[in-house]
């Protein structure tokens, strides 16, 4: 009997003593944290992709609280919805941003270039970039080894087996910019999604002279300047033998697409051109 009493006593005393010690320790090492950080973290998407430029969602939340402003702090994944929620919670004003999407600016791949060498080695664009120009010979071309695919946290990039080039899933891409950061060739660019998801862009980043780039690839920009002349809005600039369309100025008139002699300018999500097709048929009939 006394054994039972004794052991209960010992346990109770030990418990009480530990509780007292723990209480003082907890007081001593107390971390005072703004409870809003947790709330904000819950409001953010929780993908921890790092697209905002911080280590994760919680880190962004901490920065919003610490700065008490939303300048330069934006979750590209959550977009305007999440940002306006956060703004109303914090009593701040959210900056509106146009939705963006990752765009692959190379159309070489297996179909438009002739491979001169075969790459053998670790399937990582960063390593291939160190050791060779590309299988087709273009020093700026997409290497097609899928470093962008491996970093994408949203499963929105895939390599197409027939072209050997990455394709961006328009529904899934949140424009976090991870693929843009990893691409050693700077082939991927974040561009405005555009009205009705329609975009016009130059699908080439080669800065070599026209004659040289044309030797390696059928669809490279040769820097001829035709698009620059035809553009009524001054959206196109030629720099280093390469045309670039400013998405803020572009009015999606598509004149440059028709004018481009190599087909380097791409249009996305436009309805098919009926008139153009008719003209071609007529022309062939005359011949």
């Amino acid at each position: 009997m006394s054994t039972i009493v004794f052991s209960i006593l010992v346990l109770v005393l030990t418990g009480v003593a530990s509780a007292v010690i723990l209480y003082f320790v907890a007081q001593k090492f107390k971390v005072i944290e703004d409870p809003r950080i947790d709330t904000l973290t819950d409001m953010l998407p929780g993908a921890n992709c790092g697209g905002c430029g911080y280590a994760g969602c919680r880190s962004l939340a901490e920065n919003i609280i610490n700065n008490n402003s939303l300048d330069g702090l934006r979750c590209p994944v959550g977009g305007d919805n999440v940002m306006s929620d956060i703004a109303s919670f914090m009593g701040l004003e959210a900056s509106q941003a146009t939705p963006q999407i990752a765009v692959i600016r190379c159309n070489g791949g297996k179909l438009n270039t002739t491979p001169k060498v075969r790459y053998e080695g670790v399937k990582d664009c960063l390593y291939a970039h160190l050791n060779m120009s590309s299988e087709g010979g273009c020093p700026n071309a997409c290497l097609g080894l899928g470093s962008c695919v491996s970093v994408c946290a949203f499963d929105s990039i895939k390599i197409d087996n027939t072209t050997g080039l990455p394709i961006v899933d328009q529904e899934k891409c949140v424009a976090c910019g991870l693929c843009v950061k990893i691409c050693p060739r700077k082939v991927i660019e974040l561009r405005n999604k555009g009205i009705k998801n329609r975009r016009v862009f130059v699908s080439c980043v080669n800065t070599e002279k026209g004659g040289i780039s044309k030797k390696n690839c059928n669809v490279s920009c040769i820097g001829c300047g035709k698009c620059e002349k035809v553009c009524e809005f001054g959206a196109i600039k030629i720099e280093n033998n390469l045309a670039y369309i400013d998405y803020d100025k572009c009015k999606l008139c598509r004149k440059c697409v028709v004018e481009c002699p190599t087909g380097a300018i791409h249009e996305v999500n436009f309805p098919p051109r009926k008139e153009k097709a008719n003209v071609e048929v007529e022309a062939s009939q005359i011949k």
Partner: protein
Amino acid sequence: MKTFHRGGTHPEENKLTNDCSIEVFPLPKQAVVFVSQHLGAPATLVVEKGEKVKVGQLLAKAEQFICANNHSPYSGTISKIDLAIDFTGYKKTAIYIDVENDEWLEGIDTSNEIVRDIKLDSKQIVEKIKEMGIVGLGGAAFPTHIKYMLPEGKKADYLIINAVECEPYLTSDNRLMLESAEEALIGIEILKKALGVEKALVGIEKNKPKAIEQMTNLATKYKGTEIVPLKTKYPQGAEKQLIYALTKREVPSGKLPIEVGCVVNNIGTAQAVYYAVQKNRPLIQNILTLTGKSVKQRKNLLVRVGTPIQSVIDYCGGLPEDTGKVISGGPMMGKAISDLSAPTVKTTSAILIMSNKESSRKEETNCLRCGKCVTVCPMGLQPIHIAQLAENRLWEETEKSSAMDCIECGCCLYTCPAGRPLLDLLRLSKNNISEIRRQRAKR
């Protein structure tokens, strides 16, 4: 037999061109000379399009600290200065020369007579090495004169000459020792004087018995120069391994050989220094081994810098039909050439042609955890561990695992039974770590 203490492997030697004497390669009609052919800051161009140049004339001048001069290997007219493709397929600025005759600049001794007297003092020697654009011919193309400008408070005890040639197939250093041993030995004397040391150790792998015999006989005339035969084991010729094999001193991680009182140079560099100091001849040519099992006429050639690789291959009977890879350098550390129109550079010591079967990699399978890569790593690293981290892009973790100590010898990749691309991942880690360090330095 002396050797390094950790790791290493012994690939098939395949020294097929050991008995082919050095042939002088005829001058090409048009040559392409890259403006910068060394490690470090780019050199500044000092010639213009349309200018007539003579052999030995300065083309590009070194204006920064780690930089080397570049001289014209040909006489003729500069037809253009434009981008030219190098063997990786990228384009670099180069000087195109239409070759006419072979007219040397005045003041250059072109005779074969051996000059033994060293007239210059140590400072003048270093100055001369700098002026003549000598770079390390072991492969890294590091400007040689910098090794001889010792940091303050450091003193050298040994000059170490690397004549190991541990890469399979390569025989240029072997031929050099057989055909111009005297020149190399005088070069070593000059380097000893420049450094102010008494002792020079020349390491030669024992698979070159003729070279060892000849060098030992001749070296008796030069006090303080010792020829040391070394065990045939790869990578015996790696700087840190060679220092250990010869002196039993270990270079600390991330430090230079001068930390343990050694300066290491290749035997080819020693000969180039001899030419520069005694004959006033800049570095414009090198010995190149064209080899491979399927090549019809294997040769050791004396090639001027800037010769198109294609013309060298054509000279030796053209590309064999089943060619899988053309490699610049040896099979272990060399890099595959992606464009044969690329010209040779100062450090092109070999062109190796391998058939499809020889050159293709093993199919990549899962790691077996056998640990062979760890056993063979001469730097005592864990290639498997670093490769795993690199696959997950944890570059800072790879830095903690000492990835920067990797000498890229390729033993791990060569040994791996699962065909894992270990060397690729290690090189990738090193590249990313240097990038991270550069950013850290900026902060």
